[in-house]
């Protein structure tokens, strides 16, 4: 490492550090099942949001979906967050 790099390191990450951080995110995502969705998943999520919005005002992240696998069984886990004042 040259003496100039000492100054540079304080300012920004090396490209290898950026690579590592980005990889840690995608690998963690795959390992928790995130990368393994069926192709229809994003569309289903959009459709569910549209249905929901007929009744309540919700944000884009209101519908969280995961697929859980246990042996041969696949379970679609839906988590819908309603706004505080949804009951009115």
């Amino acid at each position, binding site marked *: 490492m040259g003496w100039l790099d000492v100054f540079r390191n304080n300012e920004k990450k090396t*490209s290898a550090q950026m690579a590592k951080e980005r*990889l*840690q995110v995608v690998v963690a995502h795959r390992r928790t099942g995130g990368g393994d969705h069926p192709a229809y998943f994003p569309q289903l999520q959009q459709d569910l949001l549209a249905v929901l919005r007929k009744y309540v005002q919700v944000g884009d992240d209101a519908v969280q979906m995961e697929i859980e696998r246990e042996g041969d069984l696949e379970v679609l886990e839906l988590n819908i967050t309603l706004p505080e004042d949804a009951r009115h």
Partner: protein
Amino acid sequence: MAKIIVVTSGKGGVGKTTTAASFAAGLAMRGHKTVVIDFDVGLRNLDLIMGCERRVVFDFINVISGEANLKQALIRDKRHENLYILAASQTRDKDALNQEGVERTLNKLAEDFDYIICDSPAGIETGAIMAMYYADEALVVTNPEVSSVRDSDRVLGMLSSKTKRAKEGGEPVKEHLVVTRYAPNRVGKGEMLSLDDINDILGIPLLGVIPESEKVLNASNSGMPVAMEENADAGQAYLDLVARFLGENRPMRFTEAKKKFLDRLMGR
């Protein structure tokens, strides 16, 4: 009992065939009867790397379809009597590689050999799955580069879900990380992922590091697995890897940047 070892990666061109050839050669040089099989149907290349392309008459697909028996298709290496090659076919029909045929062939080879090395094609399709399906252990070949590391992670996912061991719920396939084309001087400059980085991300035991080396191209030009080449850094690294695989303790080499002449002179 023969051990079946797949050399796999997901991403193409990272050094699977180079690794399969040198790993098989190294095992044979240590006295183990070893066969290396090219699973890359339609893109046969292992024969060239092993230097036996002119001796291929029958191939793996011919054996599976019954057009030839194993004895006719196995090519014995001229340099090491323990080393054999089973070439891939040049046919474009990928379906020729059917599961029953692969199993039958591997079972037959297992009667005769100590190690069966399967050189996987790139990708995550049938050919790659077929190459890993019966594996006991896997060498996951990875370059210090984002797309290669990510693909290796996907392959680890396949090893734990798509293999016979995974389906039958037995002992999982034993995974080994092999980092190839490693350039210590670039790692030192922060331009390339380090061994520790890759270890942190993938979390499987490191079996060996192969340096980026011009000797690899030279060796492939002459049809010689680089492990057979004396005085080649990459070849030495492969022989170390084989020794570790056989249970010996060998420190990693070729992982530090070469010091500049002036630095060495001044003892820095």
